[in-house]
């Protein structure tokens, strides 16, 4: 980063000096690093003092469109991936507690209990599963870092751009499961991929053709850390393997 910043600097200093030297007189001002002063030295703006330039600037601004966001009347155009509020898809939650433990300010509260599922087959083993009793996020503590969303292995937490949940009492900012689930409706679809970008990992994995079976390499000794796989009895041993695949 710093290398990139350092490199253009000498170029920027050099180029104006070369460009402006034919009119004469300007280079020293440009080197002084005062762009307005450099411009003021030549042409009409040298005669018109800066105060007139100031008047012109404000007058020009008055004729242009304003930047005011009329928020309560006009909804803001939020950027994609806006971090408004964290929504919970509670069917996906396994109460694994990863989010609660990774949360830097411990603002996620999870209660759960274990439930025994009867065996599906006769004589089978009963299974246990976690049932989520409580999932709450205290938005008076949340710092919107998004670590919980990142860390959730089961896609139960999502960013929603919804931001209008101010309360008059700070205690009312502790939102429970039903409220967090309501925000799921406002979660936008993931933004489209950039043109030319690689496909997501799961798409490439699904689209990949079935891996051909490895040829038996009898002449090469198996690596020390690699367990040797017993050769499978497979008639399709003929297709040649590309050399790159062999290295990987």
């Amino acid at each position: 980063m710093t290398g990139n910043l350092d490199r253009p600097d000498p170029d920027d200093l050099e180029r104006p000096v070369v460009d402006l030297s034919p009119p004469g007189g300007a280079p020293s001002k440009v080197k002084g690093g005062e762009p307005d002063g450099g411009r003021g030295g030549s042409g009409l703006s040298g005669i018109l003092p800066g105060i007139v330039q100031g008047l012109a600037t404000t007058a020009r601004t008055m004729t242009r469109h304003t930047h005011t966001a009329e928020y309560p009347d006009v909804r803001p155009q939020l950027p994609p991936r806006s971090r408004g509020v964290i929504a919970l898809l509670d069917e996906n939650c396994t109460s694994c507690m990863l989010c609660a433990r990774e949360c830097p300010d411990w603002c996620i509260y999870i209660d759960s209990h274990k439930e025994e599922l009867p065996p599906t087959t006769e004589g089978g083993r009963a299974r246990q599963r976690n049932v989520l009793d409580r999932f709450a996020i205290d938005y008076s503590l949340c710092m919107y870092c998004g670590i919980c969303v990142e860390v959730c292995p089961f896609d139960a937490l999502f960013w929603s751009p919804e931001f209008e949940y101010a309360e008059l009492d700070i205690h009312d900012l502790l939102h429970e499961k039903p409220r967090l689930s309501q925000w799921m409706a406002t979660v936008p679809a993931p933004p489209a991929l950039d043109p030319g970008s690689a496909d997501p990992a799961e798409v490439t994995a699904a689209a990949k053709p079935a891996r051909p079976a490895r040829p038996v390499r009898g002449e090469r000794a198996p690596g020390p850390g690699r367990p040797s796989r017993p050769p499978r009895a497979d008639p399709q041993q003929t297709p040649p393997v590309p050399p790159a695949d062999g290295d990987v």
Partner: protein
Amino acid sequence: MSGLTWLEVVLRAVAVLAAFLVLPLLVGQTEHKVMAHMQGRLGPMYAGGFHGWAQLLADGIKFVQKEDVVPARADRSAFRLAPGVALVPYLVALAVIPLAPGVVGAKVDASALLVLAVIGVGIIGTLMAGWASANKYSLLGAMRAAAQLVSYELPMVLVVASVALAAGTLSLVGIAQAWTPWWLLWQLPGALVFFVAGLAELQRVPFDMPVADSEIVFGPYTEYTGLRFAFFLLAEYAGIVVMALLFAVLFLGGWAGPWAATVGWLWTLLKGLVLAVVVIWFRVSWPRLREDQLQRLAWVWLVPIALLQLAVTAVGVVMMR
């Protein structure tokens, strides 16, 4: 004057008071909106429904509700009196400024003199406020205001004298009637000096050192709250109205324009409004001068130009006779 009945006097006083309460608010609202748009904003949009037209009324209601605090160490009577002293002179000045030959609150023969005199009194209100507040920032601001008054009153009086000399009368009605478009060139230096000195008298940007918020909080008005503070603000905007109308009458011919006989008063108001917008425009565009720059501008530039204008006017008057 003796021909006036009591009823007429009361009606005229009420009319002047109404103008005194409405015109500054108009200028203030214009400032809200013009300043906002010059900065790429919208300004007030809610009060009153349509583009925040009632914003200043809402501000006034808010100011009335505020507690009227007098600092413990303040000179109570002077502190309480100061807003009135600042405000009333502009009311008097507005009463004698003609909008058209017949449209004037009070007919005074030497009205130009009277206006200059009472405007000078207005600054005493600022001085009183600064002195009575028992606050160092207030005192500094008041001292700055006093220095400004001393410096800028002189060129202003000189250029008004020049106009009075050109017209041969001290009456504002007479001056405006004597006005010809030729004056725009003849009295141009004087007009510029008057405008700059007027800005300084009003303590408007770029001459707002008495209330320089980044240096001395709010200068003489630091300790004021509620309605008294609002009176100072009203005095500022009334001052803009008075200065703009005075400039229009002295240098732009007041009601001179098409159909002057019927809508002349509208011409005066229109010219005044344009000047008020210019005052606002300066405020948006320019930074504040330093105190020594202020004094330098007055004594090195304005006073000599004003004296020169007086000489040019005198030569012109003698040549044309």
